[in-house]
């Protein structure tokens, strides 16, 4: 058993690319594994809903080629989590297939483990009926329709399914995991090596899964050195440094709060964490504590089709119309609602985004009475069919162009339209239908795996 292990992470999002010289500098440090996260729900529900990957196949392939070269040269495993972004089975398989193709081309023989995070709707329905599913963060209550309408449902695995594979197949070269709690592969690798303080490995994983984003300036390639009761972080670009402040600040980023981080099986409490500047570019972290939850829960993510969307864009410069833009657009909405019962019933939506006024902040905008020089309008129509969305959008756009208004002087048209055709179908719209915590019988319950020799 090693007293210390090193983990190399090339980038916070697999496929975004990373400086190769920094990667090889990291390999020269003698890491025990390369671990990289590929997942996120940040881009919104369409990827999970439509089964799309976050990065282009060519971008994924580029990053994979470099990492696989590192695997072969250093004889260490590569762990990829949340393959493809949403981490559905098809993304795991596509990633495994790509690895196979690269291996064949470069004459490598690799043992690849695929771990799946797809959850059967029947299991979700069963747990929902048992009252064992609760909203995660500020999500609304789950409904039976949310489950039925979801096109894909995945669960974020903890470290346990990955650890099981690593223990059963110590010679595995690559692990491709479906949807995972971002720090899970980091935790799994620590536990495999007997570093089993969850306060340490979860905190390390939470920072490392973003690559060298915890450095200043934000970077890409980073190496963590982990031991029983602390870990050290060093970015591999010599132009970057980790500081006690930059590392402590990292757990603020896109988290509800920086000190209590919920994950599968419990909560990481960083209230007493300590940050020590080891040298100019390296920080030592310790003091994280993990509090197991009474019941083991995994986070479910589901996405459903919400409709089909058509949009138009354009601008207004006329000061007389801009001065009454809200009542003007409100009147158009009322007119359209009278024509299309779907708008009135809520089965279709017509929404105007008024850029220059409150297009960015909407209701949250504190400057209510600001009168801009010009405004841009994005008209957004969603309906149950693309055809209906197009019809409503077209009608709305014509109304914006030609509806008269009080004190009108410009009688030839109200609206400057850049695009031709003026309204454009942009396809399906999704919604996060499930973002909930589900109790499982064991941390392994919904997850399956297979081994592929490529």
């Amino acid at each position, binding site marked *: 058993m090693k007293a210390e292990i090193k983990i190399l992470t090339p980038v916070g999002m697999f496929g975004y690319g990373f400086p190769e010289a920094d990667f090889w500098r990291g390999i020269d440090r003698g890491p025990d594994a390369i671990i990289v996260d590929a997942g996120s*729900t*940040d881009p919104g529900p369409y990827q999970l809903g439509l089964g799309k990957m976050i990065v282009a196949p060519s971008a994924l392939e580029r990053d994979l080629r470099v990492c696989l070269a590192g695997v072969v040269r250093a004889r260490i495993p590569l762990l990829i989590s949340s393959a493809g972004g949403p981490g559905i089975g098809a993304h795991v398989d596509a990633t495994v297939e790509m690895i196979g193709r690269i291996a064949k081309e470069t004459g490598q023989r690799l043992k690849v483990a695929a771990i799946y995070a797809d959850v059967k709707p029947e299991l979700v329905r069963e747990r929902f009926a048992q009252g064992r599913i609760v909203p995660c963060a500020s999500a609304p209550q789950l409904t039976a329709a949310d489950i039925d309408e979801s096109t894909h449902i995945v669960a974020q695995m903890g470290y346990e399914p990955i650890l099981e594979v690593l223990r059963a197949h110590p010679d595995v070269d690559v692990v491709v995991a479906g949807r995972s709690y971002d720090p899970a592969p980091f935790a799994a690798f620590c536990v495999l090596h007997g570093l089993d303080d969850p306060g340490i490995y979860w905190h390390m994983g939470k920072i490392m899964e973003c690559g060298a984003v915890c450095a200043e300036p934000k970077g890409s390639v980073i190496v963590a050195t982990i031991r029983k009761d602390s870990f050290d972080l060093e970015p591999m670009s010599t132009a970057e440094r980790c500081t006690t402040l930059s590392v402590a*600040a990292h757990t603020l980023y896109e988290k509800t*709060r920086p000190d209590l981080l919920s994950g599968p099986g419990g909560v990481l409490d960083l209230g007493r964490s300590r940050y020590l500047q080891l040298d100019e570019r390296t920080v030592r972290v310790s003091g994280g504590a993990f509090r197991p939850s009474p019941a083991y829960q995994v986070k479910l993510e589901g996405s459903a089709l919400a409709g089909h969307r058509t949009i138009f864009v354009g601008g207004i410069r006329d000061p007389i119309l801009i001065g009454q833009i809200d009542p003007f657009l409100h009147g158009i909405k009322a007119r359209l609602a009278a024509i299309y019962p779907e708008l009135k019933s809520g089965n279709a939506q017509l929404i105007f985004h008024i850029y220059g006024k409150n297009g*960015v902040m909407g209701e949250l905008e504190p400057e209510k009475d600001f009168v801009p020089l010009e405004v841009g309008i994005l008209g957004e129509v969603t309906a149950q069919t693309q055809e209906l969305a197009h019809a409503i959008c077209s009608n709305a756009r014509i109304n914006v162009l030609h509806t008269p208004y009080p004190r009108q002087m410009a009688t030839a048209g109200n609206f400057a339209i850049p695009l031709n055709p003026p309204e454009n179908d942009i396809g399906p719209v999704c*919604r996060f239908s499930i973002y909930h915590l589900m109790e499982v019988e064991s941390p392994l319950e919904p997850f399956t795996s297979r081994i592929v020799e490529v």
Partner: protein
Amino acid sequence: MNDKSKHGNRLRDLAKVIRSKNSGPFELTFDVIFSQPEPYRRVKESGVLTRELVCRLYGVPDDAIVAFMFFDPALAFKFTLRRGWAQGSIGERDTFGAQQHAPLMEIEIPGQATDQASAMK
């Protein structure tokens, strides 16, 4: 539009980072991070950053605030709001929540100007 910058008393004059971001699909989180302990302490002790101020600036009820805290290890102030709309779905304005921070920048903090504050560090 606003020439208060000479005062050096706005949050944007005192902090290093003022940002907003989605925290999962159903929350928006806001971070104000300082590079030096002195302006951080000054802002924290001024008592200006309150839940009431957040409610007023963003026009939200108090129960929309799911976290509100100072975080000393990172010299940071943070609050998190429940999102009033679904992320990346119908009517979305800011998928990543990355442009909801601007009203925080103009918050006035009473006391001495920054140049004095940084000289004291």
